[in-house]
């Protein structure tokens, strides 16, 4: 099969209906594969403000039931939508097929009744506000009702994790929003496949009527200038940074706000305790390698810089073992994607500066560890870890910045000593080393409770108590 000329079909979804068509051929950024999509009918993906959102009067409990059923159908091996999705996605995605399959399965796990209820309860002091106008009276005797009113959201989805599609659909449904999902070129399939699965359960369900998913090339002004307006949407929920966000930012203004999930870098911090014994070292390195290799280092929670307390000799023992583990994990997942030219060049020129750097492995895409005294200036990606020697963990803290998301920490008993300084530097999560992936259900993300920010907080003032 010729990946360059093959065209994969990517239908859209508009408020319950599947839109098929090959009007426009787009290119996926990473593999140079083309996909054909229908022209976007802008009017169909926007619901006039004169109509109240379809989900408004559907109780949250029913919405959650529907989501749970969707999750069950997603993992059904006979679900033709998901099967076809994985098939097409594996041709346009940077991650290997096996990783994608398990991701889709893992993503469905988010659609669990207890989990979804917990998310809502942690995001809203009183989740009842989603279902009804909650009465409240202040100390002066003024009365009012407050509602977490259903918003109109555009979700600008990332392309590096299909799980985000599931999460975004669930969150959009739970706040009863009218949702437009702007898919990414490296995954223009998953969102539509999930929505098709939902429509298969009940094509007329208000959830289905509240969802649209389309693709346009990020920055396409013919679409964005028309759609990104407060008359149509309240919030743009966007992932990513750089150009992707700069595009969106120009459309913000009164009535149209940004909820951004910012691009993040995650790190690990390893104290001298890791070297207490060979056995401990092996355990700690294994934990560190797990964090490096989350989603094969494509995710924001995946560690890229590992600050190790100790000198070169100590750190080198850590590096050698870490390299072995990364190579093993890469091989197990069948991932041998080559490094891009620029990264390869950076690493190769470091190999020549042995006073400053030591490299384990090669820039061949099978896994590579670089030891240095300061963090390298490029973004370690694609199975590349940078181990930075620090005299003490206090020194590691100065490398935390506003882009730092997760800090994996060892030993666990020193975490409390460092968390204030990490937060002050800009970090958002501190976790036990090896646990960058999982998080406590309902915890804040990107330093906020997102659902709380999605909704349109509406007050109904009801005068004063007589």
């Amino acid at each position, binding site marked *: 099969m010729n990946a360059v000329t093959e065209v994969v079909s990517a239908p859209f979804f508009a408020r319950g209906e599947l839109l098929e068509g090959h009007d426009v051929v787009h*290119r996926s*950024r990473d593999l*140079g594969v083309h996909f054909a999509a229908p022209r976007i009918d802008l009017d169909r993906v926007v619901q006039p403000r004169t109509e109240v959102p379809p989900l408004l009067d559907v109780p949250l409990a029913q919405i959650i039931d529907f989501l749970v059923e969707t999750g069950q159908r997603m993992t059904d091996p006979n679900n033709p939508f998901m099967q076809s999705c994985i098939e097409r996605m594996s041709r346009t995605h940077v991650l290997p097929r096996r990783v994608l399959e398990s991701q889709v399965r893992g993503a469905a796990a988010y659609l669990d009744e207890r989990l979804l209820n917990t998310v809502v309860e942690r995001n809203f002091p009183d989740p009842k506000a989603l279902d009804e106008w909650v009465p409240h009276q202040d100390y002066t005797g003024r009365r009012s009702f407050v509602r977490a009113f259903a918003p109109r959201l555009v979700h*600008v*989805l*990332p*392309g*590096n*994790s299909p799980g*985000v599609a599931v999460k975004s659909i669930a969150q959009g449904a739970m706040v009863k929003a009218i949702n437009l999902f702007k898919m*990414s*070129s490296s995954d223009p399939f998953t969102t539509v496949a999930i929505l098709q699965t939902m429509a298969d359960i009940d094509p007329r369900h208000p959830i289905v009527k509240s969802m649209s998913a389309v693709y346009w*090339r*990020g*920055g396409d002004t013919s679409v964005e200038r028309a759609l990104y307006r407060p008359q149509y949407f309240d919030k743009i929920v*966007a*992932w*990513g*940074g*750089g*150009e*992707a*966000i700069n*595009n969106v930012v120009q459309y913000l203004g009164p009535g149209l706000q940004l909820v951004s*999930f*910012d*691009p*993040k*870098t995650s790190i690990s911090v390893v104290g001298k305790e890791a070297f207490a014994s060979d056995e401990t070292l092996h355990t700690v390195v294994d934990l560190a390698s797990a964090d490096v290799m989350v989603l094969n280092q*494509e*995710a*924001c929670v*995946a560690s890229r810089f590992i600050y190790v307390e100790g000198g070169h000799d100590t750190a080198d023992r850590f590096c050698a073992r870490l390299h072995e583990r990364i190579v093993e994990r890469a091989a197990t997942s069948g991932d041998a994607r080559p490094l891009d*030219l*620029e990264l390869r*060049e*950076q690493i*190769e*020129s*470091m*190999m*020549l*500066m042995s*006073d*400053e750097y030591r490299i384990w492995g*090669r820039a061949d895409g099978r896994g590579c560890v670089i030891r240095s005294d*300061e963090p*390298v*200036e490029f*973004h370690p*990606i694609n199975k590349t870890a940078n181990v930075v020697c620090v005299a003490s963990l206090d020194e590691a803290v100065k490398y935390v*910045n*506003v*882009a730092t998301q997760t800090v994996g920490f060892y030993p666990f008993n020193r975490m409390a000593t460092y968390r204030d300084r990490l937060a002050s*530097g*800009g970090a958002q999560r501190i976790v036990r080393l090896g646990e960058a992936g999982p998080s406590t259900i309902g915890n804040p993300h990107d330093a906020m409770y997102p659902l709380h920010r999605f909704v349109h907080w509406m007050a109904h003032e009801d005068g004063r108590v007589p």
Partner: protein
Amino acid sequence: MVAAAERLTRLVDAEDRYDIPARELREAQLEAFNERLQERIGQIKLVAHRAREAGITAVRCFEDVVRLLLPHTAYKSYPESWLMGKRWDRLSKWLDTVSTYRVPVDKVAEADDVDDWIGRLAGEGFLVSCSSGTTGKSAMLVASRRDMEWCKTEAVAAYAWGSGVKPAQDRRIFGMAAVAHVARNLATGEAYVAALQDPSYARFAYPVPPITVGGLTRMVVLRKAIAEGTAKPGDIAAFEEISAARQKAVDEAVGITARAVVEARRSKLHVTGLWAGLHAVASAVREMGYSAKDFHPENSIYVGGGLKRARLPDDYREFVYETFNIRPERNYQNYSMQELHSGMPRCRGGGRYHVPPWVVPLILDKGGDHLLPSVAGEYEGRAAFFDLSLDGRWGGVISGDKISIDFSPCACGNRGPSIRDNIVRYADLEGDDKIGCAGTVDAYVRGVT
């Protein structure tokens, strides 16, 4: 017998140098490449490393050559923290990995600042030119004194071929842009003056101080400090103030330059600069009431680089030509890059850039990994070249440019390879659809200009 590389570079003086079909050069070019490889493999560490990785000790075909090219980013692979931290010892050691000759680290390590470091290196025979990374890193390209002599010869020869102007010291040169104060620009500037400038006039001095490497890198260093969170608001404000002062000088230079060029209008002129500056001066000249009819009919022009993000009216080129009375054949264009020491002048007959015999064009796939099979007629790909003239560093570079090349004869009659005038950077073609949750602190640094 004269070595192949020597035979090919000597063609710089040959009238018919662009008229030699590529197939007739193949063998000599491979031989010359092997000569260079044998010399440099023991000298340039990065080349030795690359050869070792590729398991190549001698090449038999151009496919082998491709494996020994360095991407243009190789000259940016130093950590900026060394520039910031004034770690001249480390930067010198890094420079040594891409240099043919051993960089005397101890003699330059104590420099006060980057300009001093570059000055000290120049004193030792290591001439470093920097590219102006507008937002990103500057490339640092080391060259030898011999390279500078070559640049002087080659630049003027290419200009004479491309413009049809026979250098006769009968023009007045009007530079209308602040040129980066780096070794290579100084050398070629000097050569143009020696070849073209009428000695009975003083050379026009563009009234804006030249941009030093320190000036070029100041912004880069500040960006990094912002990213790290160490820059204070006062640092940013101070930088913006310097930028504003410089912009004011550039704005004021327009009027001064326009008045000077109008005064010199009866002389034969050679105008150079960047489009934005040329357009501004041309507008001022028009406002003063002068245009083509007032200028000498044999005026010539050389414009370096593209638009560099300047916003100009659609007809900016014509406007400039018509103002200074530049006839189409006197409009010299040249395709080159900082990493090469030879240019590819545009012909007047076919409007294509011609590759000289001592520059080996290698057209690669987009990823820059493989040589594309050569086909009849024109085809496009990523430009890579091996410039056999280079002495102080490796001549093989993979560029960021997408070009269309044709190895068959050009409409102008010359039979050497030629490149269409539609060169674009791959970086400018890429979409901005790249969204992921993983990213760097770069996204958090608002532009400093």
